[in-house]
């Protein structure tokens, strides 16, 4: 069906106030926050494909109408939350419509005694958290994007927040879902249906990135707000001591609110050090080591645009310099509870940290992190303005494989990009590593090529250790090529679900697996 006709039909179905076809809207719905989309924009080029129209659903009936229409007319559709995804999971790969769910943003029920909240999918995380806080409760889910992402998007991508060591990932909080299936039928799962909170079909929809249905209701468990939270910093001369410390904490009965270990460079970038471990001013040390004074040193110690452009052009040199900087790895820890409980938890931390040769830096670094905990992600625009790109790779593995996998990834990537990492989202059995990498290239084509080489090298290194290629951002189009090794046989199962539920392949085609229905 021709684009104009699709929009006309949708207007008839939903009313004209719910269907938008203005060019500037369509352009802004052409991509999520995947860096390749940003690079294209900065190069002044239009996206290769934009949606035919954008529909704004206001209730489940609107969603059903759109889905049924798309199934009947074989028009692909992409569910949209807030578009903060970073893997291209709502980039159209065929002529499609975008179904925006942000008008479905109500809290449907909140039962404090039962610790449950049921919401519509388009509710922004921060708004939900504020509503819960007013009732003395918390969701416990704090992604850096909390102000610009939706509950439906969290579930669809298996998101993780900064306090996941205590509260778990979104799938651990999930108790029930309502989903509009690709045939327009409504399925109620988990405790929103007649199932259990561990209904396995919740695990099918969580992480499906809009490929198996549109989430229209989400029931989450909530927790009482903690009486108090407290944070501290610890330093480790050897990163691996820091890793062992995290492992021991997670395998004890402690349930820390936060546990994040920054590798030396990430500690530096996050502004935790003004001095090296030898007590030298960090700027002076960087200048001395590089011999370049000003620019390259600035690239390392500040997010200085000019410095970055020069420094990121030679990532291997920059990585080498950073290796030479004698800095330490910083561990940020947080605990919560009543005053007495907090003291008791810090006492146990002291024993574990000491056994791992760590140094207690007191509360200041911890509280400083807490204050700026959402800030770092938003510094990236400076880099783009400088003509560089920056991206993040969040992978995970067992404790046993963690340090070797970290080293292998750093080695694989450092030829291509400037790289740093922190270890967060820790579990008794393993942990995730969050790499941030950046590079500068003069042309869009060379930028794209370096970007792709970096991803390929990184994910191949992960797969040599049997780790996962995504801990919480999802797959989208970005990591699809690596799925055959991530989960051999997974494609066959995915294809069976697509055949059964979405034979016309209308639901966000081309994402997660590259399949032909």
């Amino acid at each position: 069906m021709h684009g104009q006709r699709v929009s006309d039909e949708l207007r008839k179905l939903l009313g004209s106030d719910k269907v938008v076809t203005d060019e500037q809207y369509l352009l802004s719905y052409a991509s999520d926050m995947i860096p390749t989309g940003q690079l294209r924009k900065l190069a002044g080029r239009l996206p290769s494909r934009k949606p035919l129209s954008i529909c704004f659903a206001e209730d489940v009936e609107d969603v059903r109408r759109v889905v049924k229409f798309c199934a009947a007319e074989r028009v692909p559709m992409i569910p949209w939350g807030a578009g903060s995804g970073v893997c291209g999971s709502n980039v159209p790969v065929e002529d499609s419509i975008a179904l925006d769910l942000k008008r479905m943003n109500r809290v449907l029920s909140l039962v404090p005694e039962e610790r449950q909240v049921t919401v519509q999918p388009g509710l922004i995380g921060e708004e939900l958290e504020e509503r819960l806080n007013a009732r003395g409760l918390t969701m416990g889910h704090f992604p850096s994007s909390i102000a610009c992402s939706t509950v439906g998007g969290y579930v669809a991508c298996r998101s993780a927040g900064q306090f996941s060591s205590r509260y778990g990932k979104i799938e651990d909080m999930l108790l029930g879902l309502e989903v509009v299936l690709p045939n327009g039928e409504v399925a109620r799962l988990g405790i929103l249906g007649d199932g259990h909170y561990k209904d396995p079909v919740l695990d099918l929809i969580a992480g499906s990135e809009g490929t198996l249905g549109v989430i229209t209701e989400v029931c989450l468990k909530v927790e009482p707000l903690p009486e108090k939270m407290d944070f501290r910093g610890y330093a480790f001369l050897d990163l691996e001591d820091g890793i062992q410390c995290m492992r021991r904490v997670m395998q004890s009965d402690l349930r820390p609110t936060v546990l994040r270990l920054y590798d030396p460079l990430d500690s530096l970038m996050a502004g935790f050090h003004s001095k090296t471990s030898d007590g030298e001013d960090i700027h002076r040390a960087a200048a001395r080591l590089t011999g370049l004074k000003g620019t390259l040193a600035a690239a390392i110690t500040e997010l200085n645009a000019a410095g970055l452009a020069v420094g990121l052009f030679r990532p291997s040199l920059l990585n080498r310099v950073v290796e030479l900087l004698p800095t330490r790895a910083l561990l940020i820890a947080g605990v919560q509870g009543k005053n007495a409980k907090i003291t008791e938890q810090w006492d146990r931390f002291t024993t574990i940290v000491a056994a791992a040769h760590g140094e207690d830096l007191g509360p200041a670094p911890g509280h400083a992190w807490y204050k700026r905990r959402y800030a770092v992600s938003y510094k990236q625009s400076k880099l783009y303005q400088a003509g560089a790109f920056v991206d993040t790779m969040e992978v995970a593995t067992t404790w046993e494989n963690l340090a070797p996998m970290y080293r292998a990834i750093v080695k694989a990537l450092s030829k291509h990009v400037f790289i740093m990492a922190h270890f967060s989202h820790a579990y008794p059995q393993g942990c995730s590593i969050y790499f941030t990498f950046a590079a500068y290239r003069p042309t869009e084509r060379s930028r794209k090529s370096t970007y792709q080489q970096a991803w390929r090298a990184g994910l191949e290194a992960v797969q040599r250790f049997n780790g996962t290629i995504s801990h919480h951002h999802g797959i989208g189009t970005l990591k699809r090529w690596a799925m055959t090794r991530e989960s051999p046989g997974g494609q066959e199962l995915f294809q069976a679900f697509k055949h059964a539920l979405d034979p016309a392949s209308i639901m966000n085609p081309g994402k997660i697996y590259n399949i032909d229905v």
Partner: protein
Amino acid sequence: MATGMSGTRIRKELSKHIPGHRLTQSDAFRLVTVQPDNPQELHTIVGFAAREGVPVVPAAHATRPPVMEDWHIRLNFGRMSAIVDFSLESGLVCAQAGTKLADLSDWLMEKGHSLMVRPDYGEDMELWEFLLAPDAGNFGPRFGSKWEQVFSLSAVLPSGRIFENSLAPARASGPDFSRIILAGRGAFGLPLEVYLKVRPLPRRRQLTALAILDLPEACARAWKVAEAAQPEFMEIVANQCRSGDKVPAQFALIELWGERTEVARRKELVRKHFGKSAKTTDVPYEELLGLEETCRFERGARSQYFTDRQGLAELIDSVGQGPVADAPQLRLRGFVHNQAYVTIERPAGSPPRPTTTQDLFTSTDGSWLLQETSRHLDPRGIFSWAPRVWDEVG
């Protein structure tokens, strides 16, 4: 969709694919038994079955096999019983499908470790069987269900392809198909090698048995007990069939693991939150536990389901106070996230237990969705018999 292939032909064809294997044929049960040695052989066997449309049924220990008219392949996992990996550092063990739970527990015990879930049907069960059985497994507020102990798994799909997932504590790489495989009770795939979470044996294991004095009150309070004390295992048994003078008819069994002081603190919380609705009994924990085992299947119809606080209160109300000769026996577990897991054994003479292909966790809509999909995954239905293995328990 059956193949119509005779037993002799199945045996001949299979011996070409896996030469040197002893294949036994039973004309009475119309089956050819195979004992694969490794995942690669399973891939070959199931691949053959898929091409020829021969049903494949795993041989379980705790159940009677389904009676089938068609010739089929009976898979015996007995030779795939190795422990293939153990990581002290990550708290993980990887065992093959045919590993007996008792052997795995003993092996772990020698290493100073333990599984975090108690098998229900006795320890003769093999790992694949334990994971796929519809029963929820004996689980408690602390560690959750048996499925929550699965870290990663490989499985043979109905096409013969081997499914695997990465080795990580959490993933965002699409849907979690390992959960679907477990929920499918065999229809989506049979587990081959499974990584399970383990933990060091606790310094102290406090087993507490309480006699319940006021059942409705104790059940209402159990939610708070579970939340505050987080017992490793907790169950409430009501109208116990062998109660006598000494043995209480209604009791709670609670298990707490940990350091001495921590266990003592949690035990106190248990006492505090049960209040006057329960009191310590002289009858040892093990005796009560064993007692309950002996009563399992002899009273007639048995059903299991999950219910919330209100549903549980209503159920207890309907059962009434104290032991009644023909009242159903109840076992209540879980008490996690507003859900309790109820097992009711009704007296003999009640209608027979309805067979169910739905596992206890899955919603009706979810079950429908799984059934629809299994038809596409396995168009000739070769694994469709696997879930029926549990229809004839005992």
